[in-house]
């Protein structure tokens, strides 16, 4: 399983490798604070080191040291930190401007439901964005508290069951950015990832068009048999495939599952082999996940995988 990520075409370098203005502001703030912190830390250590070897001093000198180091120095440094920090806060948009793309993300144990309300479709665990355009995320939770975090694009925001939260992000460069759930949400919190795919506007528009369409009918003998297996195994109780009878709402929408790059909330790359393992025995990959394994023979399983891969 581990090798999979090495081969996966995924770049994930965290908050200090920003690919958008929000993460960029915060990374700048960090480097500035690190520089200040390094100076303060070294200064204190040097003073401590000198004090350990020094001769005695008078009380007046000692008091001055306390006032200078304990009051003046922190007053100056901390005020600066606060000012720069508030300036960064102000530079980060808390509401989206006109023309922003709206995306609604709902946390579930342990996957992300993704809706594009202006385009009328839902997908899961994979969010496509146009480069250079603001995106307004509306975060909700269907169960417990989750937290939506794509370090290369910006900070995190909690997904609450009480009320929606808003997060405005923007990607400046095309690429794939890994996201995670940052609030402990139960046994599979570790495997509640997501993938953000930032695309040039025309590619994104094409993706939107494709996603908005209902699922293509299965082509070929094996996928057609797979569609039957899908229905017979009861997959449609929880999953939806638009354009078919499957209309479950408790699990990820599979209408264009075949176009998605990862599986099981970004736990695995979506290769045929992994899809088969996941469908046959999800508990061995994500113990405690709410999906039950399909008790199918090898040929039915192969047909089902072929059907799913064909949902492009």
């Amino acid at each position, binding site marked *: 399983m581990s*090798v999979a*990520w*090495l081969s*996966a075409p995924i770049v994930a*370098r965290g*908050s*200090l490798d920003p690919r958008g203005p929000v993460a960029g*502001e*915060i990374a700048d*703030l*960090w480097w500035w*604070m690190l520089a200040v*912190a390094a100076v*303060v*830390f070294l200064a*204190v*250590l040097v003073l*401590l080191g000198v004090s350990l070897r*020094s001769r*005695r*001093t*008078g*009380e007046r*000198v*000692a008091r001055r*040291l*306390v006032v200078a*180091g*304990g*009051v003046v*120095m*922190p*007053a100056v440094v*901390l005020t600066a*930190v*606060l000012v720069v*920090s508030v300036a960064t*806060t102000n530079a980060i948009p*808390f509401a989206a401007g006109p023309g922003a793309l709206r995306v609604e993300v709902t946390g579930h144990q342990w996957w992300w439901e993704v809706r594009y309300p202006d385009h009328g479709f839902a997908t899961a665990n994979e969010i496509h964005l146009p480069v250079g355009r603001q995106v307004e995320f509306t975060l909700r939770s269907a169960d*417990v*508290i989750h*937290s939506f975090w794509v*370090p290369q694009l*910006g*900070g*995190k925001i*909690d997904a*609450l*069951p*009480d009320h929606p*939260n*808003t997060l405005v992000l923007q990607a400046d460069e095309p690429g794939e950015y890994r996201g*995670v759930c*940052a*609030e*402990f949400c*139960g*046994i599979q*919190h*570790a495997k509640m990832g997501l993938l953000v795919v930032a695309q040039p506007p025309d590619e994104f528009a094409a993706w939107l068009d494709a996603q908005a369409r209902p699922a293509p009918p299965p082509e070929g003998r094996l996928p057609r048999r797979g569609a039957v297996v899908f229905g017979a195994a009861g997959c449609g109780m929880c999953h939806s495939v638009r354009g078919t009878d499957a209309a479950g709402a408790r699990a990820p929408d599979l209408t264009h599952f075949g176009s998605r790059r990862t599986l099981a909330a970004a736990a695995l790359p979506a290769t045929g082999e992994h899809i088969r393992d996941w469908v046959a025995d999800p508990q061995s990959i994500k113990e405690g996940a709410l999906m039950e394994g399909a008790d199918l023979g090898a040929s039915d399983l192969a047909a089902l995988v072929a059907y799913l891969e064909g949902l492009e």
Partner: protein
Amino acid sequence: MTDVREAPPPFDTPRLREVDTDEQLHELWDDPPGLWGKLRAVQNDAIGVRLLLTGFFFLILGGTVDSVVMRLQLAVPDNELVSPQLYSELFTNHGSVTMFLVILPIFEGFAILVLPLLLGTREMPFPRLGAFAYYTFLLGGLLYYSSTLFMLVPDTGWFAYTPLSGPEFSPDKAMDFWVLGLGVAEIGAIAAAIEIIISVLKTRAPGMTLARVPLFAWALLVTAFMILFAFTPVIVGSLLLELDRGFGMQFFDPERGGSSLLWQHLFWIFGHPEVYIQFLPAVGIVSMIVPVFARRRMVAYPWQVASLVAIGFLSFGLWAHHMFTVGLTPVVGSFFSAASIVIGVPAAVQIFAWIATIWGGRVRWKTPFLFVVGFVALFVLGGITGIMVASVPFDLQAHDSYFVVAHLHYVLIGGVAFPIFAGVYYWFPKFTGKMLDERLGRWNFWLLFVGTNVAFFPMHIVGLMGMPRRVYTYPAGLGWEVWNLISTIGVFIIVPGIGVFVWNVVRSWRRGEPAGHNPWGADTLEWATPSPPVAHAFSVPPVVGSRHPLWDQDDLHAGSPEVSQFVTALSQWPLKWRAVLVTRTGDAQPEEVFRVADPSIWPLVAAIGAVSIFVAELLKLRLGALVGLAIVVGAVIAWNWPERVEATEEEEEAFEREHGIPVRVGGSWVVARWAMGLVIMILGIAFGAFLLSYFYLQTANESWPPPGIDLPQPFWPAVAAVLVAGGGLAMLHAHRSIRVGRQAGLRTGLAGALAAGIVALVVQVLDFQGLGFGATEHAYGSIFYTLGGFALAVMSGGLIFGGLAAYWSVRPGFTARRHTPVTNLARYWAALVVIWIGGFGTLYVGPWVT
């Protein structure tokens, strides 16, 4: 104020005077022998050592074993050493145990062990309360840990966020172990805090003015107040969570009018001060050690005290910085950000006061000092990253990432555990009479220092790279592997360090070098006693004339002629009951001599009763909970039952005439009132937490009461409130009467108050029964009956207490000189009136107004 430029302290420090009554004092003060005697023991030495040993036991269990397994699991990506379920249990246990069952008991152990000696008194003011604190902590910890026996280990994190910890998502009993087991331990923390506050304020040696109080005692005083203000809300929060879990209420369910964030507020109002509750005693220990090993008086003592107090206050203004990601508005975020950053100032004052003190001194490199230097380095780093995460935008990235794990371990290991080790090396000789081995001490230090940096520094980096906390595994290929492996190696440097420590303690306890009475040439009173000290510590109470009595005083009993004569007299009389001297809060002039409690089995019984309530709730045996409650009430009554008074009022008055200091064998006028004051304060804080919950839920709902529930009708509750207020006046009359010895006024007052209280209780309960809504359909009903129930419970306590006072007013009878219970009852009743009227006013009138 003494001058800093004095010559270095001499090593042949003064010792205490020995007197011919020592034998009798021994007999009087030693805890009784045998197992039965050990269970009844209340002496601070015994209780303090037990707290420390139990705290270290839990440290090794939950602090060390858990982290080794977790680090092994995370050593390589996609590891399958432990299951995800076990990993959730491990990190929940690790956080819960270290935050609730390790650091606090260790510091309370230090406090109870050291404070009486440090302050120059014979005993803590409420020895039985100290014993109760220990037993509740021990039994609560064991109840919590017993979850492993049933394979029901809590698994939702030490913060237990709702709704994950609620009945829907954690339906089994695992979280009940968490709520209930730790709930018992929290009660113990509060009991010990009461004891510590009154000890520091009221039982100091004559002459130990507030400006001469050792910084460790100052730190404990501030900490103890913080415990009252922090632990009370989390007990209220835990109660609400258990009402949701066990009784079907709706505090935290957004679909039924509850709020998932209410828990976060109640939890972090506790949770953030908790960090400083753990840190301030550590600061206190460091401030004791630095002057002794730098051989120089502490510089900027007033600044240090001011910093401690400032940190105490500020720490309550920044709980929401744990909630920057829940969607606060930028203004609210900036406010809490600024409040969090400001706390850097008092912290910096502390650090520079130590550096300045060391600067002027000549350092002796013994193990305690080594740990102090390591502490400064690690804590400064942890403090700096703390300032960073207080910045809202940066925290949006760092929050719940490994960066925070790194930060908090630098603060809690560097800032708290290192001073704890320093304190053990420092005070071990005093209480065992043996020195800890220096060579092992150095190994201990260097392994911990290197190990801590190796284990936790890489976590900063991997956190910035995007690794979230509380994950049981992580994929390869993200660049996290090497940092995680290094962290794991670090733990395997820390563990042998702790092993060396344990070995050093065990070995040195058995055959360490004899310590002598003052091996470090220290300055404070505990070092004037033999090592180990006798149970009553001071045959002749010391008289303090300096902040550093052992450095500055040739004679530890010299004071004004009256005071010297008075302390000498106290070594001769009384010898039949345990006398402790009370001094005035500010100038520490003698105020009163009172009798502290003897050994008793009732604290243990009360603790068992308290745990039984919680066990019964776990098993859903509601009748069993009532039995437990009855045990608690009975045991507390028995433990406070007036004992045979071994001195007549005439004897008291004779001593008072000779020395001008009143003697109160039949109950202190001073410390008992302080204790009642603190109890009222705790009730007030709890009441505040309930009110906060009420109004928070009100704002979370669009209509209040919710549709379908009528506005409450205030007529009968108003009648009840008038009765309660009338009862308060009757109680006042009772108290005024007994102060001048009028028995008839006392009895009519007590009878009137009790009658009014009972009728009010009945009227209110009847009104509750007529309301058309229950506690389980909507959060409105849940908070309505819970807040009302709190007022009814406070009234029930007042009625039980009042009934006892009525009985005692006949047997043994109160006099103008001996009537402490009546005074306390009158004050309790005054608080009761406020809570009753405020509580029911909110419930019945509030919705009409808003």
